């Protein structure tokens, strides 16, 4: 199987994402945002960063990059897509995922490790986890406050589309453990079809114990497990 990592102008976690799947022994290539062809890939990663300087809103301009049309077709045919941080924001802006990401309630850029409780252990992106597992993965964002209206939120919850929630180190989902004001402590979600995921934390920055944590590996390993 082969991963693709999209580079938008202003992406800055593309090399980390590339390195993450490469270290797991998988084939991977970069995809420039002007590309209109994503054939040959099995899973596409939209990496973190500040595409187009976050002008207007995060992801508001990146959604018009030529590659996004190709990715929409790819996703419509069941192709796996995961957006991390800015990639999550772009997926919401482009309508591939429901809801939106707005400024953190504290109005500060937050860069730290957080605990995530796994809520769905059967998805293409979390199938090697167990429900209730607590993963320690870093966040680094200013606009990670997940918002969806009541109806959308209810359907996400009812359909098991919530992948991760911010929690304490014991797995308790509390207001104190919510770093950015996200509704229902949501840190990552899935689309209704189950092939598109978005998450604000950076699993590609938690791949090696020597660099503090390797809890992010299980997400890429889950994708590989499902697609191999």
């Amino acid at each position, binding site marked *: 199987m082969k991963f693709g990592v999209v580079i938008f102008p202003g992406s800055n976690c593309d090399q980390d994402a590339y390195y993450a799947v490469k270290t797991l022994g998988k084939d991977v290539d970069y995809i420039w945002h002007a590309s209109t062809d994503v054939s040959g890939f099995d899973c596409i990663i939209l990496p973190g960063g500040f595409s187009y300087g976050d002008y*207007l*809103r995060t992801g*508001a301009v990146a959604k018009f990059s030529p590659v996004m049309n190709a990715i929409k077709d790819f996703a419509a045919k069941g192709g796996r897509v995961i957006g991390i941080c800015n990639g999550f924001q772009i997926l*919401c*802006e482009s309508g591939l995922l*429901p*809801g*939106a990401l*707005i*400024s*953190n*309630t*504290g*109005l500060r850029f937050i860069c730290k490790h957080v605990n995530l409780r796994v809520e769905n252990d059967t998805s293409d992106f979390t199938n090697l986890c167990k429900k209730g597992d607590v993963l320690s993965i870093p966040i680094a964002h200013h606009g990670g406050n997940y*918002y*969806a*209206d009541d109806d959308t939120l209810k359907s996400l919850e009812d359909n098991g589309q919530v992948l991760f929630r911010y929690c304490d180190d014991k797995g308790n989902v509390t207001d104190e453990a919510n770093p950015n*004001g996200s509704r229902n402590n949501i840190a990552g979600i899935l689309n209704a079809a189950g092939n598109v995921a978005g998450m604000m934390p950076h699993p590609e920055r938690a791949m090696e114990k020597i660099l503090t944590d390797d809890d992010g590996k299980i997400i890429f390993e889950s994708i590989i497990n499902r697609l191999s």
Partner: protein
Amino acid sequence: MAKVNVYITLKPALLDAQGKVMQGALDNLGFEGIENVRIGKFIEIEMAESADIEASVEDMCKKLFANPNTENYRFEIIKK
């Protein structure tokens, strides 16, 4: 030429953290009776006049300027 003023506002259901901070600052400055402050975006466009200018600006707001999940928009067209 026409001048278009576009106003983007956060939907009422959303917490406007910036607005809350401004409200606190106004309180600190001694302004009384402030019940709510909300901050939005203001966009000025200069463009050629045309019969479908209204539909065109509407389209711009929907596709680019406002996120329908979180924001409302309104605009005024001033013909010169």
